């Protein structure tokens, strides 16, 4: 299998879906110039100049138009330059896109994909470094994807575009250039299907998005200490595949849940609570969560380093559940 970067995998998914279905179109800021800041939409303007829209700086308008176009049968792929700016369009996401099917008694379908580049990268501080997955998980009617590898990114993006309902698609900026194997032929990854990224027997480490490579790094480091961890990547947070996660925890008896975002009221809180409900009697130690402290992202590198959890934090959590 050839090896490509995550952003290239996403670009391929967009091109292939646009070729497959002419209702797919792209809309966002700077999406034509350079193909967006992350080059994901590069090349589209050359093939389909009428199906890519470079917009004014107007997120509420961008998402609002996307919702309307979706209601009228199109499949918009919206790029929000940084997830931080989706707050400018929260009404469109929460009140317009997410509830429409329910409020209309099933009449409406809003097949919109909202691409949300997220996470710390390049020291851009509090308004350009957030993750925010749990905000979207909490909204009924939204699906939330958070791929960690090029393979998952491409397969999940194709599913997202084909889905009849809205998807908040989280792309960790720090992973855009990370490489991995991606087949040339068409494939999709169903939502709600976790992936075991590393098999192990001693403890289950559930890792989300940007924490997956860090958990895998911890897995290697912990081998020296005699711990063999299993790393489970949920890949989508809504729907959330608790079945695979519980199955793993029943085998290992120990669970660590890792997210890059603040762990307070976060993604890991939901997973840990569900584990406590469903696997309480299989657990041989209290569940440990790994996440950042409940603070906005600071600027200085020294402060960012203590804020964002790394492989060392995952290892420390594993030692805690093994103790």
């Amino acid at each position, binding site marked *: 299998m050839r090896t490509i970067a995550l952003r290239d995998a996403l670009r391929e998914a967009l091109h292939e879906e646009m070729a497959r279905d002419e209702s797919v179109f792209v809309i966002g*800021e*700077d999406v*034509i*110039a*350079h193909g967006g800041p992350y080059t994901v939409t590069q090349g589209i303007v050359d093939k389909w100049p009428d199906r890519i829209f*470079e*917009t*004014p*700086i*107007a*997120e*509420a*308008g961008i998402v609002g138009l996307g919702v309307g176009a979706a209601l009228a049968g199109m499949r918009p792929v919206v790029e929000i330059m940084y997830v*931080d*700016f989706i707050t*400018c369009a929260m009404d469109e996401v929460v009140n317009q896109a997410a509830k429409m099917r329910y409020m209309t008694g099933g009449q409406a379908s809003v097949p919109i994909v909202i691409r949300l580049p997220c996470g710390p990268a*390049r*020291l*851009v*501080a*509090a*308004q*350009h470094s957030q993750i925010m997955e749990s905000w979207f998980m909490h909204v009924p009617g939204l699906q939330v994807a958070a791929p960690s590898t090029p393979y998952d990114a491409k397969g999940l993006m194709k599913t997202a575009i084909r889905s009849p309902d809205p998807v908040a698609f989280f792309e960790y900026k720090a992973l855009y250039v990370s490489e991995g194997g991606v087949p040339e032929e068409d494939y999709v990854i169903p939502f709600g299907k976790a992936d075991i990224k590393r098999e192990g027997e001693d403890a289950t480490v559930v890792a989300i998005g940007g924490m997956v490579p860090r958990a895998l790094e911890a897995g290697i480091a912990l081998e020296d200490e005699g711990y063999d961890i299993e790393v489970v990547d949920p890949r989508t947070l809504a729907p959330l595949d608790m079945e695979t996660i519980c199955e793993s925890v029943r085998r290992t008896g120990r669970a660590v849940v890792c997210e890059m975002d603040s762990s307070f009221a976060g993604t890991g809180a939901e997973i840990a609570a569900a584990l406590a409900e469903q696997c309480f009697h299989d657990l041989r130690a209290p569940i440990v969560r790994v996440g950042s*402290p*409940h*603070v*906005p992202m*600071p*600027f*200085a*590198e*020294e*402060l960012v380093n*203590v*804020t964002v959890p790394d492989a060392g934090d995952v290892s420390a959590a594993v030692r805690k559940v093994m103790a």
Partner: protein
Amino acid sequence: MTLNAELSRRIYTDMWRIRLFEEEALRQTSLGSVKGTLHTYCGEEAIAVAVCAHLRDDDYVLGTHRSHGHCLAKGAPMDRMMAELFGRATGSCRAKGGSMHIADFSRNILGANGIVAGGIGPGTGTALASRIRKSDQVSVVFFGDGAAARGPFHEGLLFGSLWKLPVVYVCENNGYQQWVPRKNVAVVDSVADMAASYAIPGVSVDGQDLEAVYDAAGVAVERARRGEGPTLIEARTYRFYGHSLGDMEEYRSREEVDDWRENRDPIKLFSAWMKERQWLGDDEDEAIQAEVKVEVARSVAYAEESPLPEPEDVLTDVLDTEWRVSA
């Protein structure tokens, strides 16, 4: 107040302070001492200095992602700003904000802003506070031409006009919104025309012409201070460097940039304007630049000598932990 020799020299000095501060920040970035990104104001200096020349210390200023100039012009100490870019504990925001969030509340500089149009609502709100407190403090909100597309621009101007708030909206129209030429994404050429929808005066001026900005800002600030309501000023300008660090600038030609730098540099233009009036001699000009270079070098030394933040600083400043409710 009309421009005189002394005030002009002070304003001129401030333009150099902005230019040389930022060029040093760019150099320090290439040396690895300044990290993160920078949105430089070089080329747009006349606007901040001409507007802030009309402001009192207690007037409010709110900025954008491109606010080094606004902060320096409103009196933020350069050494603490440089220390912020260096990520030092002595920085304006104790290394928590960086370039995009520089603020100095002791000078009523309520901060740069990483969200396009993010300052417009709050800047109208500081004006509302002046109204409620019956103070004659004026608020100035700077923003780029891109901000005029966003809801907060429209909602802010509506409130400002509806309640005749003491605020001046200053749009720095540099013709680009990141990598997109304004003409590709805007339906009116002049942002000043948008004032009509909110029944406030809209003035468009050449932002490279210091005197033009100074005069327009003077009228607007006085109008606001008298309680007659807001003004929207559009200053036509140009940024000399890329949008932020690492910009390949494929969306504009080298010739266009060179032309602006050569013929429309606000510092060169104002220097010539002063010299015509015999308000500035060549010696003085050199002395001003030399003096500013010393100030910039001092700010770097201050930053370099300053301590890094402590890891536990991450947890402070989220909320006021001293505060207790008294039952």
